[in-house]
């Protein structure tokens, strides 16, 4: 039988050749590639502007071959809103922010940007700790999770029990597409690629506020080999941060 070879995976055009600083096994690398793939698939690399937050995401401008603006701590969505106001429907604006930045000091900005319904695609890299700061507790750190600032494990008495911030956004009338996936299992990443595309699509044609949370692993700060970190995060977050689509413009809130 004659065979031909079809390329099923390769290096996306919008991904820059610059070597990335991410630690071995860090899923920021996956997220970056997924963004590049979605940008290529949508053919928007010439009209899209990205905004990145602080921490590990702050070097994204070096890794994506598109126009990018880096924002100060907590203000990524303000910067993205300003860009969106000025650019209007002649382009797309997305923000890629870590959860420590977005759900911590950026929380009020996140809520109000969503309430205003700014035409943005927001991608939140949730890796359960503030990675670049040095692995301290973040708003999504799990109860009992050991971090640099909670060496005995995050105390529910002192810090409460983390909530599903992504679900919180589904209650806001002007949010349109909301989803979450794990950025470390092959099946979920394949779905996630579609979620990212969908969020850009919704932004482009319906001018809505879209939000995708990408659950990731931070092997360095979890102090686990990447393969073990995958198992640990998968097992310990299944109840609190489940994958799937939470809201669509057509069906509203799902689940």
């Amino acid at each position, binding site marked *: *039988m*004659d*065979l*031909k*070879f*079809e*390329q*099923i*995976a*390769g*290096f*996306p055009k919008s*991904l820059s050749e610059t*070597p*990335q600083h*991410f*630690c*071995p*096994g*860090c*899923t*920021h*690398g*996956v997220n970056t*590639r997924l963004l590049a793939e979605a940008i290529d698939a949508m053919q928007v690399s010439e009209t899209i502007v990205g905004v990145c937050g602080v921490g590990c995401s702050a070097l994204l401008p070096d890794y994506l071959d598109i126009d990018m603006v880096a924002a100060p701590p907590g203000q990524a969505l303000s910067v993205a809103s300003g860009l969106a106001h000025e650019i209007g429907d002649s382009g797309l604006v997305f923000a890629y922010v870590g959860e420590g930045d977005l759900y911590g000091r950026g929380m009020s900005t996140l809520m109000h940007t969503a309430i205003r319904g700014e035409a943005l695609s927001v991608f939140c890299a949730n890796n359960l700790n503030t990675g670049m700061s040095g692995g301290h507790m973040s708003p999504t750190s799990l109860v009992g999770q050991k971090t640099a600032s909670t060496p005995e494990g995050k105390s529910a008495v002192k810090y409460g029990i983390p909530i599903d911030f992504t679900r919180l956004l589904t209650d806001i009338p002007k949010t349109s597409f909301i989803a979450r996936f794990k950025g*470390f*299992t*092959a099946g979920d*990443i*394949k779905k996630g690629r579609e979620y990212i595309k969908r969020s850009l699509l919704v932004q482009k044609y319906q001018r809505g506020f879209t939000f995708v949370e990408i659950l990731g692993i931070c*092997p360095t700060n979890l102090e686990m*080999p*990447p*393969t073990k970190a*995958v198992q640990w995060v998968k097992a310990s977050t299944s109840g609190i941060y489940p994958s799937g689509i939470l809201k669509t413009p057509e069906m509203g809130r799902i689940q």
Partner: protein
Amino acid sequence: MKRVIIDQQRCKGCGLCAQVCPRKILVLSGMININGYHVVACTDEELCMGCGNCATVCPVTAFEIYKPVPIAAAL
């Protein structure tokens, strides 16, 4: 034709690809790249079924995968 092309200079040896490979043909080799990482290698390309799991989970986009598909016989 090569089916699995690995950019070993990008590889950081995290081992996530080896974990998801259904055919278990990806291993962390003893080879060290310029950055000092043990890089991943494919032991037998003939066994690769082109599922793309390795490329999907790879944080550094080190994989290029070609899937063999039969050419339909001319009608």
